[in-house]
């Protein structure tokens, strides 16, 4: 009796497990809960805080766009926007150029190839704070090894003011960021290079292509999808950089190296203006979205990859 009833009228659970849609939802539920709790909710809260005058230790009330109006008239905020865009642009271009160059070299048949590939990863492996501290000493106003060496060589007569002069300071933090970011770009692109079949290169050689032509018309188009992903990540990391700046300059001299992330922290946590800090962080989102959209809809287009135009 019981068997027949279970066969004719399967229990609710059994039918649920037999339903592909229901099963799919159930499998996705843990991931969805995770994403909602740890990504969507904090992001939503951050956006909401940006519309309030919340202080640390005091709930805020909704004030609409007031935080953004204040930021609009704030020269330090605009300086930080300029710094962030400059920092991201210059550092990303350098990281891409040097990273690609390094990847091409590592792709050749070098002696001790694996050893060099491992070595290249080192700057990426060292925790940012540690490498930032090392750079802090390298750029120290009095004890810089660079200044010292140049002075010993008789090339300069006083230490270079690495972090005290606005132009030098920007160049210095960008250099530190590039040093740290190259391995990620280089190793990822190297992985991409190795997926390119050698037979394509051989065919091109037989057709009489020069090494530049082989790079331009074979390697680069095949590499574009990887470049798109790698550079999207690289831009995102650079745009949201915090630790390096915070250790090296804390945004100084006179805010010349303040990025939006560091300014957001400075106003939000030590300054207690949580709402305003959140607004600065939210103001980063359009830039980040733009770079993601550019990568997804631009760099991944077949036509572009094949060197054509729309």
């Amino acid at each position, binding site marked *: 009796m019981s068997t027949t009833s279970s066969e004719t009228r399967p229990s609710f659970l059994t039918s649920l497990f037999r339903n592909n849609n229901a099963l799919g939802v159930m499998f996705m539920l843990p991931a969805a809960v995770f994403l909602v709790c740890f990504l969507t909710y904090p992001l939503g809260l951050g956006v909401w805080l940006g519309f309030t005058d919340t202080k640390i230790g005091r709930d805020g009330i909704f004030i609409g766009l007031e935080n953004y109006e204040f930021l609009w008239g704030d020269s330090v905020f605009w300086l930080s926007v300029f710094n962030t865009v400059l920092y991201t642009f210059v550092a990303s271009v350098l990281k891409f150029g040097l990273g690609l160059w390094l990847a091409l070299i590592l792709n050749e048949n070098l002696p001790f190839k694996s050893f060099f590939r491992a070595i290249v990863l080192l700057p990426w492996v060292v925790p940012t704070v540690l490498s930032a501290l090392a750079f802090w000493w390298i750029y120290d*106003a*009095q004890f810089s090894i660079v200044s010292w060496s140049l002075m010993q060589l008789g090339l300069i007569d006083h230490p270079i*003011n690495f972090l005290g002069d606005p132009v030098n300071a920007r160049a210095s933090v960008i250099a530190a960021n590039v040093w740290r970011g190259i391995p990620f770009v280089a190793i990822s692109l190297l992985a991409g290079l190795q997926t390119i079949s050698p037979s394509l290169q051989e065919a091109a050689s037989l057709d009489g292509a020069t090494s530049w032509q082989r790079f331009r018309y074979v390697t680069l188009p095949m590499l574009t999808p990887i470049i798109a992903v790698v550079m999207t990540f690289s831009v995102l990391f650079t745009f949201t950089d915090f630790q390096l700046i915070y250790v090296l300059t804390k945004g100084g001299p006179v805010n010349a190296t303040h990025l939006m992330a560091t300014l957001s922290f400075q106003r939000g946590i030590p300054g207690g203006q949580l709402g305003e800090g959140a607004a600065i962080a939210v103001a980063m989102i359009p830039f980040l979205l733009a770079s993601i959209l550019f990568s997804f809809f631009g760099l991944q287009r077949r036509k572009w990859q094949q060197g054509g135009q729309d």
Partner: protein
Amino acid sequence: MTINRRDLLAASAGIVAASGLGKFGMTPAFAQGAEPKYTPEAGASLRLLRWTPFVQGDEDAWLANTKKFTEATGVEVRVDKESWEDIRPKAAVAANVGSGPDMVMCWFDDAHQYPDKLVDMTDLATYLGDKYGGWYEGMRGYAVRDDKFIALPLAAIGNAVVYRDSHMKAAGFNEFPKDTDGFLELCKAMKAKGTPAGFPHGKAVGDGNNYAHWLLWSHGGKMVDESGKVAINSPETIAAINYAKALYETFIPGTESWQDINNNRAFLAGQVSLIANGVSVYYAAKKDPALAEIAADIRSTNFPIGPVGQSVELHQTSSLLLFSHTKYPEAAKAYIKFMMEADQMNSWIAGASAYCCQPLKAFASNPVWTADPIHAPYARASETLRPNGYAGPLGYASAGVMADYVLVDMFAVAVTGQMTPEEAVEQAEKRANRYYRV
């Protein structure tokens, strides 16, 4: 550290053994005029959040005192440490959510950011003030709001000028100048001798703010007036900036990138001969045998007096907060009272070896201040101290302006020539107004 902390502890232990028990739990042995009595609630236990001590002696003494309190009352007190930058957000969150530590050693104007979340301790503060020669004015300023003590002043972490005696003498000065004009001459002479001074114009939370506030206040400038209206744009501020420019010319190059640690480093390496710092730089030199020569040559003094005619400095200030969310307010007050009484306070000040300056005038006679001549200027920290939002009310605006380095940046843009003094003041005024919201 050769301070007679051990002797002091030994001496005070006896007194506590004799009188300590009488004050708590038991019947009062002797009744003073307005002495408040706090009887800890049954089964009470407390949590205190404090900044990580700068010296081990501070922590040892504080914990020893806490242990004495526990022995006398049976109330367990858990003391948690956080690095000093993290205290501010953690305390604010504890105040906001109404749980966490019962008491916090906070910084600067923290108490004024959530005054309604704090227990009024006016009776305790009045009693302690009457008993121990009164509170220092600046320390009191951080703790009092609308004539009520929303916090109890605890200590000033003093800042003083530290210099190399032989280098000063070589520059032709037999004693350290007392006023700002003489100070400028000294710095010029020391620069000429190749032993320059150095003060941070970078984002140095402690030292940078100290220096900038001294520059401003010693010339009579102020960020806001008594009503909280931004008053930075004044001839006094311009004078302060011009003075800072002249002084900056005598510094070692690169101080606009200096953070808190740079001046210590440069001083101990013999690169600069005159800085302003906590007493830590002296102990760093003293502990290292390789630096014995520098340690013997170090002298300390207070910042020179400017046109305003009195010593005015910022220093770091810490107060004790008692949150109203505590379940055991009586036990907490008993604890705070116990820690502030002479036996405990004296042993703590001695243990902190000149880092922590007393909040109550009677403790100025603590032997630690005469144990080493280097300590002497640090003894005056509480006396020369002025709250950071001077002369206006304290709160979010005063905290925000300092955390945003408005004053530090104002001097830095002017001394490096990026802006004229007038432009620098205008920009600082604009930035301060964003916080004081005109």
